[in-house]
């Protein structure tokens, strides 16, 4: 018996224990919080089963209104996103419109602005009375008050759409990019004009991508916390996420929040499943086949109106908000307008160096984002390696990748409630420490890390590792001397792709931070009701600056499309 064990031990692949550890971490990060979330909604503190939380959550009209508001917001924002995103995607992918570079850069810029910062920009633009647009309207029309009020449902829809339409753009553009001109030629030769061809051939071929994008944007909109919190709360209405946040006002009612989070979770899971079905469907050859020859559609005199429309969208989402934010960040008082004597660097200096709160928050943002990206990437790499090198059975591999990808369909706010429920009491009392933020960020962006890691691992021929092993190296030797050097570039890129969203994460952070562990996004939200827009804008600019630096690094590593690829979205 002893001999058998000794032989089993000698023959055992030592790397086995690392994989076991990775699975254990996965349990802590994904399974446990989800389990606790569900349990918390049914369980009283003493452990007995109850439906009281559900009664409390759904027993009031106000709470139900929040649910309806979320659905209205999601549907309208997603529709508006299509109106914004589709013409831009078509113009950039299929036409000879001038100024494509400018539009492309603006869309990238829109991607870079955290949605809640965009909301701040729009508060400056269309706040009642003092907003720039209202002031301009008053000056031009000579009325007493401007017509715009961003603290309303239409305002919320507009701002949400401004910062979600890039997803529609990316989905539609990659579908259009795969479409060959020959398919359109075939319609032309049968006598269809450009418009007819576009409507009856091009559009249906990219329809699955559009529907998938619509669903994604809808889910983005209903899971969003920052923008509704900034715009809906002053406008005195609630959506699901802001309502969830209210349940967390002292004292936190975790059970009620968990119960109220269920519809959000269920809708999300259901719609992602639908989206998955649509994009996997085989009927549309254009999405899977190779593109043939591609020629841009000649727009003729229509190119100027199209460019005008594209720039108008970019104006709303990028130029206008960024201009007023920059103005506020560099102004002594933003209301005094654009003049040289209003210009100052004090706000930025104060934010970065003098104010310990903001200084620490900047530091934390880097630290937590970096730590989360490292953890997510390390875990994702281990798991991607286990699954794609088939170190576990195929079925277990499928389960592992499913669990790893699961956070993708969990709204950040729901995940945060799960983390709160799981890690406020022993054995793992992480609440109040930086770790709960780091782990929550790591979990949220684990799917992005996993998708990137899996692609990287797949690009390496397993025989390169087999060659190390047959020459006497262990699996770790192979990873250290062959896999790691070959993956360096793509891993650095993956790190950035995880780090960027982690530095601006708000919806999970808002539930899990404590006074000692504030990050910039939380601080920005926290300070928003003080009306100190100069400081908000400064914090926002710092965030944007961090992101731009990271993206430039990413360009060097991975080429210019790395942020606007479908996988990243």
């Amino acid at each position, binding site marked *: 018996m002893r001999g*058998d064990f000794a*032989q*089993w031990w*000698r*023959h*055992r*692949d030592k790397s086995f224990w690392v994989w076991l550890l990775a699975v254990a971490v996965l349990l802590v990060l994904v399974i446990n919080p989800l389990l606790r979330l569900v349990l918390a909604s049914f369980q009283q503190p003493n452990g007995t089963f109850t439906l009281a939380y559900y009664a409390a959550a759904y027993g009031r009209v106000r709470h139900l209104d929040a649910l309806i508001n979320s659905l209205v917001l999601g549907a309208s924002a997603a529709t508006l996103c299509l109106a914004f995103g589709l013409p831009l995607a078509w113009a950039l992918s299929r036409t000879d419109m001038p100024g494509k570079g400018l539009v492309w850069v603006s869309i990238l810029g829109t991607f870079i602005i955290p949605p809640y910062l965009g909301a701040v920009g729009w508060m400056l633009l269309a706040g009642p009375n003092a907003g720039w647009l209202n002031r301009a309207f008053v000056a031009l029309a000579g009325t007493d008050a401007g017509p715009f009020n961003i603290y309303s449902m239409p305002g919320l829809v507009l701002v949400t759409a401004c910062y979600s339409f890039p997803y529609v753009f990316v989905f539609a553009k990659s579908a259009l990019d795969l479409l060959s001109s020959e398919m359109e030629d075939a319609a032309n030769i049968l006598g269809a004009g450009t418009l007819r061809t576009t409507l009856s051939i091009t559009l249906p071929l990219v329809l699955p991508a559009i529907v998938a994008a619509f669903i994604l944007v809808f889910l983005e909109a209903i899971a969003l916390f920052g923008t509704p919190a900034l715009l809906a709360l002053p406008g005195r209405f609630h959506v699901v996420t802001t309502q969830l946040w209210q349940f967390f006002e002292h004292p936190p009612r975790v059970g009620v929040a968990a119960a109220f989070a269920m519809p959000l979770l269920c809708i999300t899971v259901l719609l992602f499943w639908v989206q998955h079905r649509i994009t996997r469907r085989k009927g549309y050859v254009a999405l899977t086949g190779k593109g043939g020859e591609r020629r841009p559609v000649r727009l003729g005199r229509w190119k100027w109106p199209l460019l005008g429309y594209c720039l108008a969208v970019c104006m709303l989402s990028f130029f206008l908000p960024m201009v007023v934010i920059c103005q506020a960040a560099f102004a002594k008082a933003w209301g005094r307008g654009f003049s040289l004597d209003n210009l100052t660097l004090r706000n930025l200096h104060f934010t970065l160096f003098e104010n310990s709160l903001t200084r620490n928050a900047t530091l934390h943002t880097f630290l937590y984002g970096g730590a989360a990206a490292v953890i997510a990437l390390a875990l994702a790499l281990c798991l991607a390696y286990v699954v794609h090198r088939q170190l576990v059975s195929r079925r277990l591999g499928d389960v592992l990748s499913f669990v790893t990808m699961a956070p993708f369909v969990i709204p950040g706010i729901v995940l945060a409630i799960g983390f709160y429920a799981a890690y406020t009491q022993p054995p793992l009392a992480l609440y109040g420490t930086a770790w709960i933020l780091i782990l929550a960020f790591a979990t949220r962006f684990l799917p992005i890390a996993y998708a990137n890691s899996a692609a990287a691992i797949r690009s390496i*021929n397993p*025989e*390169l590792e*087999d*060659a*190390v*092993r*047959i*020459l*006497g*190296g*262990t699996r770790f*030797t192979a990873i250290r*001397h*062959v896999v790691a*050097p*070959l993956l360096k570039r793509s891993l650095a890129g993956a790190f950035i792709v995880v780090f960027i969203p982690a530095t601006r994460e708000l919806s999970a952070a808002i539930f899990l931070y404590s006074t000692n562990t504030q990050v910039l996004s939380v601080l920005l939200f926290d300070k928003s009701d003080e009306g100190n827009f100069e400081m908000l804008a400064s914090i926002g600019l710092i965030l944007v600056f961090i992101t731009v630096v990271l993206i430039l690094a990413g360009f060097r590593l991975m080429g210019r499309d790395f942020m606007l690829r479908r996988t990243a979205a």
Partner: protein
Amino acid sequence: MSKLVLRNVSRSFGNAAAVEDFTLSLQEGEFVSLLGPSGCGKTTTLRMIAGFIAPSTGTIELDGKVISSPASSLPPEQRQMSMIFQSYAIWPNMTVAENVGFGLKIRKVRPDEIRRRVGEILDTVQLGALRERYPAELSGGQQQRVALARAIVVKPAVLLLDEPLSNLDANLREEMRFEIRRLHDEFRITTLYVTHDQAEAMITSDRIVVMSKGRIEQIDAPYAVYGRPRTRFVAGFIGRTNFVEGRLAGDAVQFPGFRVPKSALEAHGALADEVLISVRPQSIQLARQQSLGGAGHCCVPARVALRAYLGEYWDYQVELSGAKQRLRVTARPQEVFEVGEPVWVDVDVAQLVVIGTD
């Protein structure tokens, strides 16, 4: 004592059996090929020997010690073997010298000793001048040589080659076959070579294992595999051949158009009523006159049905008179016969091989 022994090794993936009941033993310093069409289980067998896959049943022994059994498998890194992969698996992040020296580094050989041995082996494979190059700067043939050098320099207990030449172009492939055999003659490493190319196996090997559908069809020296195929698969897979069916009639076998005395046919065990023989196109001769034949020859009248000129030889198809049987005949370029022309077919009875009817 045998160096490497596979005893009743099987491996299945799910319900599909990749290798069934594989038994083979290699002598020290022997060069054996696994030859068969793709999907016949030869690579699976090789990867079981390397330790990348565990057998479902059976054992693999190296120097008398069990290294693989269904219960446990010694990891590849502890087997003292080396392997050449179909993709060469040259590490692109290391120079030629680093690639070749890697196995020695793992074995904790002193750096100056590594440098010396790497230099020696690179000279042997004629890559001495390229030691500081990166793999991306090498041609396919040079990469192949790096892979060979890297595998040989560690003096492995067993050298495994997995279709190493399949990615090379035709001329280079021909050159490398002889190179591999030359290196084997020089270093005498026990070698197992997987290929689907019969010429590669014939040129390099001491013995060939012909596999089909996960099973061993025949293990023999190259001339025996070609000249004395045991099964219909082997006869058909190695080179071209004619299959002719006959019936036992008294002490002779009646084939369509000709008769052969039973005693002239060499068979394993007694002949059944139905006899299948294989006869190579090269062992048949065509003539305008009936030759004297003599002992051990059959002379049968026939007619040329089809012909093709391939430069190095004529490829004829002749139809035996009074029978539906067609035979393919390979003839020298100067032996010209017209389509439809009556000819005499001269078969060397000693070249008829009785195939086990399976």
